[in-house]
């Protein structure tokens, strides 16, 4: 055990680098996924069949083929057509597209679950579609979608473990290296698991804070704040 920790200590600087890679992928992929989710989630509700169909096809395609395969295409096949992406870019792009497609369903579902009466009230006040979406529907949908998005965000964090496919040396990769150096599989992956757990906790805490703020804005805050909730933070449904 002692040697294991010594080995780990010696590798801490590279673990810091690996952590940085994982964080870059998570934040970059998450940000991109969020943007894609909004675009696809909104267009998938379009009244125009073509727009809606297009969004649906994109969502199904990126949900249906696996992240691994998408990454392979972006990084190894695209260059054969003359498009070369940097490792980090390819990683972020693949994560963003894949999880963006999942999150699009969350966004769509949350928008749909804003009560019908709210939509009708905006019509009664003659609001334009974009204005309605931005000012009335989104703030309400946002509060609904946070728990599911945080769930997906944790999935995305874990999904960054495929980074070694694009030659990035992330936490999982470094865990593998530690395993070779120590010959102790449990120790190496235990350390890795704890690091992922730490990052996931940060996401959970962040999401809980966001949800609280969103609910407060809807006037639901203090009224219901009876239970301190690790539970509320992790609620519901993905995709």
């Amino acid at each position, binding site marked *: 055990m002692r040697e294991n920790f010594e080995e780990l200590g010696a590798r801490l600087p590279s673990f810091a680098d690996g952590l940085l890679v994982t964080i870059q992928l998570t934040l970059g992929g998450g940000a991109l996924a969020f943007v894609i989710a909004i675009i696809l989630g909104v267009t998938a509700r379009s009244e125009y069949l073509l727009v809606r169909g297009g969004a649906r096809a994109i969502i*199904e*395609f990126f*949900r*249906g*083929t*696996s*992240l*691994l*395969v*998408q990454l*392979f*295409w972006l990084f*190894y*096949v695209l260059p*054969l*057509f003359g498009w070369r992406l940097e490792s980090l870019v390819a990683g972020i792009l693949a994560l963003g597209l894949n999880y963006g497609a*999942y999150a699009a*369903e969350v966004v769509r579902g949350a928008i749909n679950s804003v009560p019908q009466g709210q939509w009708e009230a905006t019509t009664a006040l003659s609001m334009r579609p974009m204005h309605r979406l931005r000012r009335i529907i989104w703030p309400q949908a946002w509060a609904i979608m946070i728990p599911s998005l945080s*769930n997906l965000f*944790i*999935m995305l964090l*874990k999904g960054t*473990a495929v980074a070694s496919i694009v030659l990035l040396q992330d936490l*999982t990769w470094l*865990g593998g290296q530690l395993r070779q150096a120590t010959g102790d*599989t*449990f120790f190496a*992956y*235990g350390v*890795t*698991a704890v690091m*992922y*757990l730490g990052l*996931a*906790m940060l996401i*959970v805490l962040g999401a809980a804070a966001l949800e609280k703020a969103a609910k407060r804005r809807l006037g639901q805050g203090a009224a219901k704040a009876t239970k301190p909730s*690790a*539970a509320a933070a*992790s*609620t*519901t*449904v*993905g*995709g």
Partner: protein
Amino acid sequence: MEDEASGIWNWDRAFAVFPELLEAFLQVTLVATVVGSLIAAVVGLVVAMTRKLAPAWIAWPVHGFMEFIRMTPVVVQLLFAYYAFNFDPLATGIVVLGIHYAAYMAEVYRSGIDAVPKGQWEAATALSMSPGRTWLKVIIPQSLRTVVPALGTWVISMFKDTPFLMVIFITDMVRRAQVYGGQHYAYTEAITLAGLIFLAASYPTYLLMKQLEKRLARY
């Protein structure tokens, strides 16, 4: 796609590797997903009910454990289980996948259960129905309607996590594609086909779930 950039796509190769991939898909990916989903669906429900029914000293540790499962990569869990218990690798892998997804499905069940109106519980109490009967006949049947589509999403997601089984030396479809690639130094066809098989498998799953959802929405 195929001719001018001759290296990119070779149909002969695609036809050669396809049966191999399909075989691995049926033997590993499909089996793992189907059995894993069943485990996840059952364990998830038990966990969700534990959190509702069991005393705190049981409910909280179970919750904590499931949160740990949910927040750490499945790869790590696979490796741990594989070396800690000397069971059949495929069985170990399926159980680990099942429990990993149970952590997600438990949340789905929980929100489904919460979505059953409070009045239903009260009506059951007013009729002096036992808790067991209330769950069995009132709460679970009603929550299924909201729960099934969300569970379906996780089943589809599980399909695409089966390649992680390769860390415990199970040759699933993607692994088979990589081995083929390593043998012939040609990966594109094999990996792409694996992706398309995933797509071909998840889309019908999605349709199946829709169908089921409709059936449940009948009343």
